[in-house]
């Protein structure tokens, strides 16, 4: 009980070495860049693990927060590339109009970084406060957040002059003064993303072993009961939700320089669900599960989707079905399962492992 967190910490250490030291040495530029992209999804996934796995909030609209980070970053990089001109894609629709007002502050690097951190905190804070105080949960919460992602993606698609629309923002030349085409800078960007992933893992590691982690699980399993212990469950959930939103935003922000393009499709319904797929696959309530799962799904998409495009869709579909049906706690629960199977069968085990039962759906 008391030893396990330190083993996990060691795990994070090994993971960090593999990612930050080994990967840049052994991978080609292309695959390192892809790995960077998976890291971005993994960062978001770590947040989803916190909100959904531990907190029981099925966040189906993390694309919204991913978008806040991604578009903040993309607007800055677009302006950086455009210099003092209005970005090219805007010219056609209204050649004489100035830069939209909300773009202007994103010229500043400091403002951009601040926005990446503060926007998700504020938006998730307001949204979460409103939803949790009114006790919106379970399927309602899931569908609402998903609807929000759809709405935002549609909004971006339909405001082509202001946001680039469906085509998105791309063709960035610089990253805070660094030339993006330079391979050395690409490695630097990768290291930043990978480093942030490690930091996020450390954050949830501490959260999970803290009293807050226990309280969060308690809230997930019996929200009303927590109320009768003198806590406001809304606040507990809010903290987890905001942290997960922040992580999604950071993932989104790093996605932009790495992938070089951001479009509404990356933040809409399908993308938001794909983020969840990785988390479910790896193990929603575990420490490493969400990150590794997201990376695995990302890799699957790049490589299997390449050699076998039709098949990949079927594999992805089956992945959802098989994992959720047979392994609700994801691949990371496999070792524990084997171990438990070998232990004395007489020993009492917890009634059901971490499967958040959400009554609201039916009540």
């Amino acid at each position, binding site marked *: 009980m008391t030893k396990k967190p330190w083993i996990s910490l060691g795990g994070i250490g090994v993971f960090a070495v593999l990612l930050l030291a080994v990967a840049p040495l052994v991978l080609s530029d292309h695959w390192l860049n892809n790995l960077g992209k998976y890291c971005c999804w993994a960062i978001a996934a770590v947040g989803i693990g916190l909100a959904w796995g531990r907190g029981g909030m*099925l966040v*189906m609209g993390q694309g919204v927060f991913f978008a806040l980070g991604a578009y903040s970053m993309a607007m800055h990089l677009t302006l950086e590339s455009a210099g003092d001109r209005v970005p090219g894609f805007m010219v056609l629709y209204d050649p004489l109009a100035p830069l939209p007002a909300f773009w202007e502050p994103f010229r500043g690097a400091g403002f951009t970084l601040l926005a990446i951190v503060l926007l998700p905190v504020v938006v998730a804070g307001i949204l979460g406060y*409103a*939803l949790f105080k*009114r*006790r*919106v949960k*379970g*399927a*309602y919460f*899931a*569908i*609402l957040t*998903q*609807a*929000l992602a*759809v*709405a935002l993606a*549609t*909004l971006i*698609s*339909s405001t082509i002059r202001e946001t680039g629309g469906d085509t998105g923002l791309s063709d960035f030349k610089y990253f805070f003064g660094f030339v993006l085409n330079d391979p050395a800078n690409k490695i630097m960007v990768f290291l930043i993303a990978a480093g942030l992933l490690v930091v996020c893992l450390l954050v949830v590691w501490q959260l999970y072993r803290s009293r807050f982690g226990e309280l969060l699980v308690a809230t997930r399993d019996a929200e*009303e*009961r927590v109320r009768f212990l003198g806590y406001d469950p809304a606040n507990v959930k809010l903290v987890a939700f905001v942290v997960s939103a922040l992580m999604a935003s950071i993932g989104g922000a790093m996605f932009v320089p790495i992938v070089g393009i951001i479009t509404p499709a990356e933040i809409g*319904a399908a993308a938001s*669900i794909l983020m*969840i*797929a990785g988390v*479910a696959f790896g193990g929603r309530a575990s420490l490493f599960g969400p990150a590794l799962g997201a990376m695995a799904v990302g890799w699957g998409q790049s490589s299997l989707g390449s050699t076998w495009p*039709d098949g990949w*869709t*079927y594999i*992805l*579909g*089956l*992945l*959802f*079905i098989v994992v*959720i*049906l047979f392994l*609700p706690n994801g691949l990371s629960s496999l070792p524990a399962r084997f171990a438990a199977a070998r232990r004395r069968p007489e020993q009492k085990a917890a009634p059901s492992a971490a*499967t*958040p*039962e*959400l009554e609201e*759906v*039916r*009540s």
Partner: protein
Amino acid sequence: MHVDALIAPLLNGSAQGALLLLAALGLSLTFGQMGVINMAHGEFLMLGAFAAYLVQQVITASDLSIPVALPVAFVVAGLFGLLLEVTIIQWMYRRPLDTLLVTVGVSLILQQAALQIFPSQGVPVEKPGWLDGQLTVLGYDWPLRQLFTILLATVCVAALSAWLKHTSFGRRIRATVHNRDLAETSGISTRTVDRLTFFTGSGLAGVAGVAASLIGGTNSQMGAQYIIPAFLVVAAGGIGQLKGTIIAAWAVGVALSYFAYWTTGSLAQVLAFILVIVFLQLRPQGLFTVRTRSLA
């Protein structure tokens, strides 16, 4: 402002609402009553549309084929629903939220299969001749096809509510949802109830698919555009509340239509979503709610 500008969106919106209602009706059973969040519901709708196409390949006179297609689509989609229930859903009643993710997988597979089986461009479903023409309402030429959608939705709602209310079946569904073990030990065959409910709910999606095939394209992607709005409608109406679903569907349809009239088609979608989200924010349990003593 011309009368048209006021009356046209109202009538168009009512038809849009009726289609939404058809899409949501099955969900109000499987989601509202059984607690299953079936993300493949849109693909069942698609199955209904493809069924209509296949029927038209056999019965080439579209005047006849659409009336025949309705029950066929119901059965086809219903059987797929039944298959889903028997193979997957039946193991998941104790963790309803997870059904959402499992059925996302199912929906991916069905979409991809449809893309590969049918021509990728989609297939044509022809409107019957008796739906050509318009009805003039207050100076606006209201397409008959829209009237048909509303009629179809009305018939389905009436049949469903009669079935739930005036047969013992409705009680059994509700009992099974509320407490599976207790229902079983009260002598109810919960397996039969589950299967029949899921069959019916999915079948209704098939019927919605026929209606949808008269409005838009019949292709592998068609279901995707209905799923989220349909869920929102069920949620906004109050889970398990048929009348709530009806009102919510109508309201969303009309709102969409007015928004589209005043702004753009894309912005209308955004505004309608925001409207529902804000509404649910104010009334998290939807229009109509059922109260029980919490924790008791």
